[in-house]
Each structure stands twice: as C-alpha cells, then as structure tokens.
C-alpha cells in the first residue's frame, strides 16, 4: 500500500478533526477522497504530510511513518494545498526556482506545463488571478517527478477547459505508474479521474468503493416536461426510485441504468428533458439509508 492509515484520529482540543480513519491507497491508482467542506479531508492530508500530529492511530506513506520519516516522504510527494497562498512579492518563475532549491526539478517539464496550462511565469504573483496561482501550484507539484501526488481540491479556481487539461495530466501520470490522492467535494470530478473513492463525512469514512460501483448505484435526477398531461404510473419502470410532480412536469430519480426510463419517456411527446447529477448530500443520504437497512 502506498498510503495506509489505521484508526487515524485527530482532535483539535475538543473539536473533532477525523475519527478512526482507515484508508488503503494502492500504488498506481487515482484515489478520490470525497466529502463536504469540514468533513476532515484536509485534516487527513495534513496528517499524511506531518503538518499536524495524530491524536491516535497511525499513517504510513511509501511504507514509512508519516510523522517520523516525513522528509524522506516529501522527497517523493507533489502537493497542492486546498488554499493556495504563494509569496506575493515573487514572480511565478522565482517561486518555482525557490521550491526547486529544495528538490531538483526539471526546467523542461516546467516550460512544458506552463505552455500547456497557458501561464506566463514572469508575472508577479501579487498581480496574478486565483486561477493563475493555482496553475503555479500545479506546476510546483509536478516538476520534480514525484511518485505520489497529494492534491487538496486542486481544481478550485481553474476554468473548465483547464480543469480538463489537469485531469488529462493526472491520467498521464497514472499511466507512468504514479499514484494520486485527490481530495474533492465535487462528485463529478472524482468520477472523471478516480479509480476508487473514499467518502468522508463528519470526520469518519462512510464508504470506500470502486468508482464503477458508485456510478452504478448513484441516483440521477431527470426533470421532464411532456407536451400533454401524463399519469405518473407511466414513469414507474425499472431503476426508478421516485416520481414527483403531476400533469406535464415530473422529477424522476433513477438509480443505475437509465435506458428503461428513457424508453418509457420516449413513448410520449416531450417538450423538455434534463438530467442532473445527484448532489453529494443525496449520495450520503443513500449511504445512510443503506446503513439503516443494514441495521447499523
């Protein structure tokens, strides 16, 4: 295991950070760490990087103790913090030079990434937009060819096109055998790039699951407006978990395969139809419902 945590717990005084977090991240996978703000994602990452000390439990990275061997670990880690704050008086290039002074970085790789992300590194960071600073942070994490990327909400501040470039970058690194630990509160982001995902809520891991299983089980919401009125019974087909509305407007929740409901809808003239992803909260509710059914 590249990252292993066992009953990792952190309290800030009496406040809960994380409780009994067990994680196993395998070499070469892109592992998503999904949860709402304040769930404990950043606390877990800070423990892995030894910015803070665990109240109890243990964490290892590359088989090394996250606290005791932190310098050896950091040699091989590329990190992007959740709140990117750089030395404002420096240019992007000067900042990267400073960071490269601690860990040799490839200049050609820096140039390549700067071109790819479309950033001018000679701009003073004080004048840089949030997105530009995020790009500098990305370059900083990638230029020394780390074996493990620990990324805390890395796409915040990036426009959608650059986000896609970044996802591509992650996939390239994975193909080169690198491992990614990606924290996010955006479900669709995790779905795009991750192989497995752990969902954390209120400091506890709710589930660790293969991304395909998560996708298969996740609820999608369809809003449909028909040209003429329709009985809700016409939409009660396989995979549909709930039908709300009446007359011409319906909201249909679908789990798994959407084809049966699409076929049912297609039998009637449609004015408008949209699919939206279930929110993270819906996913949690689904897990809670499952837990309750399981007698937990």
């Amino acid at each position, binding site marked *: 295991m590249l990252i292993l945590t066992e009953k990792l717990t952190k309290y800030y005084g009496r406040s809960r950070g994380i409780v009994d977090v067990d994680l196993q991240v395998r070499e070469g996978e892109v592992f998503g760490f999904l949860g709402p703000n304040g769930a404990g994602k950043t606390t877990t990452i800070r423990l892995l*990087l030894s910015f803070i000390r665990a109240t109890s439990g243990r964490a290892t990275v590359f088989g090394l103790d996250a606290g005791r061997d932190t*310098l050896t670990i950091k040699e091989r880690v590329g990190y992007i913090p959740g*709140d990117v704050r750089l030395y404002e008086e420096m240019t992007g290039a000067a900042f990267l030079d400073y960071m490269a*002074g601690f860990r040799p970085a490839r200049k050609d790789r820096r140039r390549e990434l700067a071109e790819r992300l479309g950033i001018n590194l000679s701009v003073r960071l004080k004048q840089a937009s949030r997105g530009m600073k995020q790009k500098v942070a990305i370059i900083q994490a990638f230029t020394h060819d780390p074996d493990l990327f620990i990324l805390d909400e890395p796409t915040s501040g990036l426009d959608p096109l650059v986000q896609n470039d970044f996802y591509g970058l992650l996939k390239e690194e994975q193909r080169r055998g690198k491992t990614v630990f990606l924290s996010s509160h955006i479900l669709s982001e995790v779905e795009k790039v991750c192989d497995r995902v752990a969902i954390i809520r209120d400091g506890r891991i709710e589930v660790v699951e293969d991304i395909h299983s998560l996708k298969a089980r996740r609820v999608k919401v369809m809003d449909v407006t028909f040209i003429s009125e329709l009985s809700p019974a016409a939409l009660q087909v396989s995979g549909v978990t709930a039908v709300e509305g009446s007359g011409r407007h319906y909201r249909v929740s679908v789990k798994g395969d959407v084809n049966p409901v699409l076929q049912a809808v297609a039998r009637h003239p449609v004015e408008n139809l949209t699919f939206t992803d279930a929110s993270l909260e819906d996913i949690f509710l689904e897990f809670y419902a499952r837990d309750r059914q399981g007698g937990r």
Partner: protein
Amino acid sequence: MSDLANVFRRHFRRDRNALFIWGGLCGGFGLLIAVIYPSFAESLEGMLANYPEAFLRAFMGGTVPSFGTVEGFMALEYFSWIPVMYAAYAALAGAGMVAEETDRGTVEFLLAQPVRRSTVIAGKFLVFLVYLAGIVVVSALGLSGGLYAAGVDHSLRLFGHQFVSGYLVAMAYGAISLLISVLAGELRRATSVSLGVVFGTWFLLMAANLSERMELLGYLSPLCYAGATAVLERGSLPPGDVAVLLAITAVAFVAALVLFERKELAA
C-alpha cells in the same frame, strides 16, 4: 545547493531593504551626531552639569566617565540610543521569521518540501545576523566618517566595542522575537509583543536605574548588559556581559527551534 543556502538566498534577496532603511537611519543618526559634536566640544563638562541627575541615571545608569571626551559624549548621545534602535529592528525582523509565513499561509508550501523546519529558521536567522552586521557597519561608517570629516580624533577600537555591544544586544532581542514569532502564530501579534518586549525591558532598565528597590529587575533587560557606560569604563566589552547576551541568544534560539519542530500548522 543546500536547503540552508536556498532559504538564505531567498531571504537575503527579499530583506535587502532593511539594510537601506535601518542602515540609513542609524548611519544618518551617527553622521548627525558626529557633525554637531564640534559645536559642543568646548563646553562639554558644563553641558554635563546641566543634565538632571535622574536623566543620567535612567539612560546611563549613573554619571558618564570622561564625558569631556568624544568617546564619553558619544556614549551618552549615541551609544545609549543605538542599541535600542538595533533592538527595534531585531524585534521586527525576528517577529516576522515564522509568524509571517504562518499568517500568509505560505508555510504550507514551504514545509511540504523536504526541508527541516530548523533549517528554515536557521536560514532566516542567518540573514537577520548578516543584515544586522550590515546595519552596524553602516552606522559605524556614519559616525566615524562624520567625525573624520569634522576633524575629530576618536578611538576606533572603543567605538568598535560599543558597536559590537549593540550588535550582541540586538542579536539577543532577535532570538527572543523569533521565539515570540513561533509562539504567536500571527504576524501582528508577534510584532507588537516583540516591540513590547524591547521597549518594556528598556523602560524596566530605566526604572531599575532610578530606583534602588527595582535594581535587580534591571538585570532582566538585555539592554542592561554591555551597556555604553560599562564599555566606556572598561575600555572594552565586559566578557561576563557578552556571555550573558550570548546565552540569552542561544537559549531563545534553541527554544524557538524545538518549539517550531513540534508546532502544529494551523489550517
């Protein structure tokens, strides 16, 4: 390049304004005092007699030996102030060493690199010591240059000891401020507490000089050691005082290292 050199190089480049600002301030002060000295030279003993005794006790710890000489005059008018100016610079520099990075959030990037926390502190403290030395040199050039320009002979050796005394005092305050910087976490708090320590201990020393009952408290102030009068009387730096200042620096610096190594970085 080693990590220490990397930290040193960055902060040496970043903090160079300190040399211009504080060097200019202290050097300019020395130049001013040196240039006006000849107009006082002939009536120095009489001038001393006009100083209230309490003033002399508060700022010099008593009467000023050989006030009639340029060395005695400078002890009262220049070297009683200059360590406080150096100490104020030391407080500002020391307070920023850790608190600025934690306050601005840049510490997270820095410590995500494979660099020891103690190396970061050592590199920054080294830059402070170098610039402090630069400020002292500029001060000495201002004072001695001014005196030479005014045609006044003076003891370079004695002035050298006075400047080294100021350097050692400021070094101690720099280490204390570094410790405060680690403990405070916020730059504004670290800066105000550090300046408070400098001026608080200065006032404490003045109070101790004025009141016999408070005499012992004066020893709590780093400004008490290797003071201008003591150097003037002895003709050189008192070794015991130097040892005390070095000990304060070492204890505060090591405490800052140990605490920073253990410090949890706030999110």
